[in-house]
């Protein structure tokens, strides 16, 4: 009779199942179904002969869950270690919930705000030169790195065991703060870089001696601050989202109307 003791391989397998975390995503319990499903084979092995326990364990873990999938293995590994150590269910739940938020922050910052923009920028510039390498590099680099993240965090959680967990969540919080500082820096930079608004308005100033001089408003704006118009427009959108609680739909419509009207009036280009 095969053992119901988990071996390292079970941890790795569960880590890789993070890819399935969002397969049942919904607005009720978010990644809850997925979480239970990711854990399923390991739980099945632990409670090999005990359908009641498996049922209970799955039901417990269907509850609301939401984190960044690439850092999920850290949580699942800890979870399994604790189960094997017979940690009380309530404690496990606490830790799962405590880590979920910070890891979402860390993971989203890393994957979506740092790695993706970085490789997308490089990939796009290669694609712009007509090289198929562009999308390939993007796809391969992202997946290679994120696969590594999954495996490393999974193994790290496995090795870490339970002993230092208490200090962990505070630490994660701090690291998450750092990650969001970096993320905000990058996103702000990208916003400035990719939102493009300039004005073609010019006027002709008459100078002494019947000379004339063309004065471009855009140049004066640049003298005040480079890329001022994109910044102001992004600020406006931000305000509409934050304070006026506009939906994306309204924002897109506003932007398109503004763009078309101002372009027709030759106020922006």
């Amino acid at each position: 009779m095969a053992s119901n003791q988990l071996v390292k391989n079970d941890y790795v397998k569960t880590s890789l199942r993070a890819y399935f975390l969002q397969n049942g995503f919904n607005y009720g319990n978010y990644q809850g179904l997925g979480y239970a499903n990711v854990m399923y084979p390991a739980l099945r092995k632990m409670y090999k002969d005990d359908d009641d326990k498996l049922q209970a364990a799955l039901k417990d873990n269907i509850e609301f869950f939401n984190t960044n999938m690439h850092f999920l293995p850290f949580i699942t590994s800890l979870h399994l270690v604790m189960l094997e150590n017979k940690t009380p269910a309530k404690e496990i739940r606490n830790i799962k919930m405590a880590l979920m938020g910070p890891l979402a922050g860390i993971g989203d910052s890393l994957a979506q705000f740092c790695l993706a923009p970085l490789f997308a920028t490089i990939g796009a510039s290669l694609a712009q030169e007509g090289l198929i390498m562009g999308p390939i590099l993007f796809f391969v680099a992202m997946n290679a790195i994120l696969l590594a993240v999954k495996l490393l965090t999974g193994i790290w959680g496995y090795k870490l065991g339970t002993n230092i967990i208490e200090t962990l969540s505070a630490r994660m919080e701090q690291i998450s703060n750092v990650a969001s500082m970096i993320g905000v820096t990058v996103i702000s930079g990208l916003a400035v870089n990719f939102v493009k608004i300039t004005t073609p308005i010019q006027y002709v100033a008459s100078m002494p001696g019947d000379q004339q001089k063309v004065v471009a408003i855009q140049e004066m704006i640049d003298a005040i601050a480079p890329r001022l118009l994109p910044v102001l427009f992004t600020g406006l959108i931000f305000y509409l989202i934050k304070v006026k609680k506009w939906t994306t739909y309204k924002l897109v419509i506003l932007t398109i109307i503004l763009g078309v009207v101002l372009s027709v009036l030759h106020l922006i280009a």
Partner: protein
Amino acid sequence: MTISIFQCVLIGLWTAFCLAGMLFGIYTNRCLVMAAGVGLILGDLPTGLAMGAVGELAFMGFGVSQGGSVPPNPMGPGIVGTIIAITMKGSGIDVGSALALSFPFAVAFQFVITATYTFATTLTSYAYKALDRKNFKGFRIAANATVCIFAVVGFVIGFGGAFSSEGLQKVISLIPAWLSEGLGVAGKMLPAIGFAMILNVMAKKELIPFVLIGYIAIAYLNLPTMGVAVVGTAIALLVFFHMGKGGSETVEEVEVEFEDGI
């Protein structure tokens, strides 16, 4: 240019794969990737790549789904936009205009996905019921249902987009020059929404300095993306290591003050 039924099916499958990949987190749901595939299928890789590049940069800010939020979907430019760009190359539609024209689709797809997530909430009770009956298989079906729906949705979008491309071309060829130019201008403004959405999720007033640093790095110092990230990292670590307690204790209360934000 017309699209064969075989190509329509291929585009449908490709879109299904790419959209499902969004849930798998494998970054196929990006304009850069999708457009290249469509280009290959339609035998015009260069236009596919060009469209992918332009759309990727414009959707950079939208390429983010955080905490379950759903941004306009890159299938807009990546699938529909690329079809437009390739089939109408001869009629004066360049990738810029194709991008602008594909925006309504990106928003429409966003609707569809939001609806899917909402509808999928029924899966939970289905799963509970299956578990009550110790029907573990049923539970696993529920746990994988969203991604299956996505594959179907993706196929419909891809196939439909390709299949109806002729009708699409007719409609689009009616668009006057001033409008398509205006849409082009609007297209370059649209990324602002994506970035503002992210900043809205992340922003606490303590992060204002980092917003400014991002601005300086790009607007004044012309750093590349990676450079901005390195600068951000340097300063974030500076705060982390050298402001010690000040920093970490602040955090909790920050969460509280989050509501009134910046």
